């Protein structure tokens, strides 16, 4: 990804995040969060993680943020009543951010950097000739079959965690139904 595009998506992401924190209307916060996630998905796609980028848009910007907006509308929240923000939490929050940023810049200026090198797809195709001819032929043509490779890793290397995560989703679905049932007591 060209450097200009990287900074564009990074700025969209950071500006969206700042708007989430600073806007007082929860609906405005939720919508700027969508902008932030779209910027993040752009960064993912720039890192050759196409599947994760699309999932980021579909699951986060689509499903999760719609859930947030739905709950905000359901609760009928007024634009954060005219309470003045307390001084101590604001100072604390800004202090934490400042300390964290200084620390971050300090650490990153000392760590060795790594340049963005192009992927060597043709060399990678040799490892898949036996196991998966489809992946191998796509790699030889110079395309990165991202979804195929993720599926390969997911089902061959992470089969048990995948099933456990399925159970987790089931449990959370049941939990939500139980929690939001009106208590009759």
């Amino acid at each position, binding site marked *: 990804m060209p450097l200009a595009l990287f900074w564009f998506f990074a700025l969209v992401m950071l500006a969206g995040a700042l708007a989430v*924190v600073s806007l007082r209307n929860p609906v405005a916060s939720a919508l700027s969060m969508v902008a932030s996630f779209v910027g993040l998905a752009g*960064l993912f796609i720039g890192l050759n*993680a196409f599947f*994760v980028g699309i999932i980021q848009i579909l699951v986060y910007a689509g499903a999760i943020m719609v859930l947030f907006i739905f709950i905000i509308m359901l609760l009928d929240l007024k634009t954060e009543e005219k309470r003045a923000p307390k001084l101590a939490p604001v100072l604390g929050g800004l202090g934490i*951010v400042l300390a964290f940023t200084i620390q971050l810049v300090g650490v990153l200026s000392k*760590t060795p*950097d790594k340049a963005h090198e192009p992927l060597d797809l043709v060399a990678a195709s040799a490892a898949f000739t036996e196991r998966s001819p489809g992946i191998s032929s796509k790699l030889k043509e110079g395309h990165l079959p991202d979804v195929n490779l993720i599926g390969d890793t997911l089902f061959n290397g992470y089969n048990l965690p995948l099933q456990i995560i399925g159970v987790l989703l089931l449990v959370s679905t049941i939990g939500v139904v139980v929690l939001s049932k009106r208590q009759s007591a």
Partner: protein
Amino acid sequence: MASLNDYLLVSGLLFAIGLAGVVLRRNIIVMYMCLELMLSAANLTLVAFSRFNGSNGLPDYNGQMLVFFVITVAAAEVAVGLAIIVALYRARQSIHTDDLNSMRG
């Protein structure tokens, strides 16, 4: 081309913004959104390391697997958390953390 440290700097800034939001906002729903921002910052770090520490000409897909699982767990967490917020609102008619002080010593 952006280098690894650029990605780490941006994701660290995103994490810091999310952390500040959790500390200084008083609205539980907005605090929840800031938690999601912090999770996303971790995801960006994972994907960046997966791309830059690739092996054999490909990105390291183990890192992207972790991102996949983080996104799944985050979705489940949001669903349960929002259900708790709705139940809380039914009981107290408020989602402002200053109003929820019955366990304060």
